[in-house]
């Protein structure tokens, strides 16, 4: 199915004359290019970057939702926007899509300001909410949003069929949206966001509230989309999702990007070669807390967490715990992950 989708997507987005499409991508697929009727139908060297956000700021009353956010999304890249609830992820996405007017800063999509018709055509938005018409069928929903984006006739029909295939909903095309399962609704919600085959796709927590099986299906859809060259911003507060799907990660907290880069880079920049130890002890909570603090660790959900330079230091740590009257229940040595990075940088967990 994917090869069919790839062909369809590329036929839609790429002018047949492009010769450089396979460069850097192997034989798997073509690099998506700008449709011929676009004002940016020039060579890729002259092509503006798909998305540029510069010093974006937005306040809602006393609350600072965005505080000078800057980021760039390159062609074919998937950028993970990682942060806890209320960090400013959705506001940033809504600012990019033109639904939030920033107090300062700018957004440009292929060189066009947000909220221009060119930017709207190039952007696809998958909102966090299930923004569908519940009493319309899957194909009617897709057709409606396709028409709102200016599609009609055979092109619309083709796009609807393609999206149904992509979301694995072809056999449910005639079902009302309200009768679909949660996972199917999520997939339809995603399909409605890319019905016009945008070159930049903004996905705002598309896996919220879905079961693991449906989540895997959604990952496959995103990977297929990536494989076809769409540039994607993917917001989540699940670091596993960011690690699996994204080339780069930007960590956002209190409306600011506090770190960004490839996830291994981020981990290395924060932790270097250090490892993390998680241990559970049996003993009075007050004693455990005091002991953990004394060794520059912290308590997370009842587990003591330490960052150590070398794994050989574990033995000394455990000896000291025994001397303090704490009985070890279990211990884990692990390589730090994005959540560790976030925790280290903000002092808070991603799911706060």
């Amino acid at each position, binding site marked *: 199915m994917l090869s069919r989708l790839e062909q369809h997507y590329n036929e839609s987005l790429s002018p047949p004359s492009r010769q450089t499409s396979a460069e850097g991508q192997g034989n798997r697929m073509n690099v998506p290019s700008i449709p011929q009727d676009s004002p940016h139908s020039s060579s890729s060297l002259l092509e503006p970057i798909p998305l540029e956000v510069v010093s974006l700021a937005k306040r*809602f009353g006393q609350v600072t939702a965005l505080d000078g956010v800057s980021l760039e999304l390159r062609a074919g890249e998937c950028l993970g926007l990682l942060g806890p609830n209320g960090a400013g992820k959705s506001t940033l996405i809504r600012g990019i*899509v033109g639904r939030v007017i920033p107090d300062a800063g700018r957004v440009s999509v292929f060189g066009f300001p947000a909220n221009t018709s060119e930017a*709207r055509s190039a952007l696809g938005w998958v909102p966090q909410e299930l*923004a569908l018409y519940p*009493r319309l069928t899957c194909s009617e929903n897709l057709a409606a*949003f396709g028409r*709102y984006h200016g599609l009609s006739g055979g092109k619309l029909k083709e796009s609807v069929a393609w999206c149904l295939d992509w979301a694995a909903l072809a056999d449910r095309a005639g079902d009302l949206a309200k009768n679909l399962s949660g996972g199917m609704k999520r997939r339809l919600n995603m399909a409605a966001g890319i019905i016009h085959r945008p070159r930049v796709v903004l996905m705002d927590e598309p896996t919220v509230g879905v079961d693991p099986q449906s989540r895997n299906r959604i990952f496959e859809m995103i990977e297929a989309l990536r494989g076809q060259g769409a540039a994607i911003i993917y917001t989540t507060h699940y670091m596993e999702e960011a690690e699996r799907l994204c080339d780069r990660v930007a960590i956002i907290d209190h409306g600011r990007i506090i770190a960004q880069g490839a996830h291994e880079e981020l981990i290395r920049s924060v932790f270097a070669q250090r490892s993390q130890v998680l241990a559970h002890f049996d003993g009075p909570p007050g004693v455990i807390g005091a002991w953990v603090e004394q060794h520059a660790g912290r308590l997370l959900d009842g587990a003591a967490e330490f960052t150590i330079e070398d794994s050989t230091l574990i033995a000394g740590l455990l000896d000291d715990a025994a001397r303090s009257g704490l009985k070890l229940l279990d211990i884990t040595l692990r390589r730090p992950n994005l959540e560790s990075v976030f925790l280290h940088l903000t002092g808070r967990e991603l799911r706060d």
Partner: protein
Amino acid sequence: MIVPIVRTAIVSLRRDRAALALSFILPITFFSIFATIFGGQHDSTAKINVILVDEDHSRASLDLVCGLQREGSLAIHTRPSSKNKSAAPLPEYTSLTAETAVKDGDAPVALIIPHGFGDNPISFGRDQGGVSIQLLNDSSDMIAPQMVAGLLQKAGMTSMPEVMAEKGMKYTDQYIGGLTPAQRKRMNDNLERMNGYLEKLRQREDQQAAAGDTPAQASSFAGPIAVQSRAVVGQNKRNPMISFYAAGIGVMFLLFTASGSAGALLDEAESGTLDRVLSSRVTMTTLLMGKLTFNTLLAFTQLVVMFLWASSVFKLDLFTHIPGFVVMGLCTAFAVAAFGMLLASICRTRAQLGALSTLLILTMSAVGGSMFPRFLMPQAMQKAGLWTINAWAIDGFTKVFWRDLPVRELWPQVGVLLAVGIVLFVVARRIARRWEFA
């Protein structure tokens, strides 16, 4: 871009069977109930506009005019009122202009005091010599002519005492003077003849009432002054109140449906669909125009269904009034759709919309004449009704179905409804800016 929005809304409505039923079945049910219950009766006392033409200018007629003008429940008009108060007064009504005025709905009743009335004003019925006062009425208002006829007798009795005495003596002399056996027999014979005449009259009226007909030439013996009544509007209408209730109930439910349908905007805002739509090529103005178009079409369809029902079940003469119906239907539908858009844009939640729309629509419907005719209301209330969509719509439909006026005569109602619709939509668009951007 408006067409896709209309299309989406139509499919959504088709799938929402409860909303569909509420849109079409409920108003028909209410209309049928109102039409059945109130279709043939009223009871109320309100000040009645009466056009009075005195062609006789005799002492008796002048006294009668004065007596009628003193009646607190009648508003007597001897000449058309001029819109420009500083201008010279318009000429007095004649029998012809009075009839036209009743046909145009300026007043429900006109009284014509003909030449020769003063020669024999007290006639105890029109068969007793003398000329009859002409009572021209609009039979859509069944109370006014009855009241005016009664008050006319009262005014006659109280405003012409000399005439009454003179004529009483004459009749005494004529019927029982001398009280000889022969005179007594004659008196009894005359009384018997009068009783027989009254009995026959009652029987005839009972038969007409049983047949469901309103006598166009009412010749009742209704007092010492002879009155001949003639309906000049709606004399051939089967049921005068059907068109009124079809319009009245129809408009009230159009308002409910329009506000409910416009509330889809609130649902879409809440679900995030509105944001998604506005992130496409659709602008807020386009979206609202699409919704307005859909709601106008929905409201018009409701009216069509309602009037078809009235036509098939209550014999409303729809098919000879198609142009007027279409013009009034579309204008009314446009105004109520814009009203719904405004309510939806003002409210933050569906619950707010439900409460506000119920309050406003019921108030507008009561004041605007959807529940009972405005002509039964006090003057102040009738004027207040002009601030409602209901009143203008009902007036327009009444012109079409009751007065059989041509489409060009609908310009005041069409103008007001279109202006109201445009203003409400512009205000709604302005308020809807809150949805555009955060």
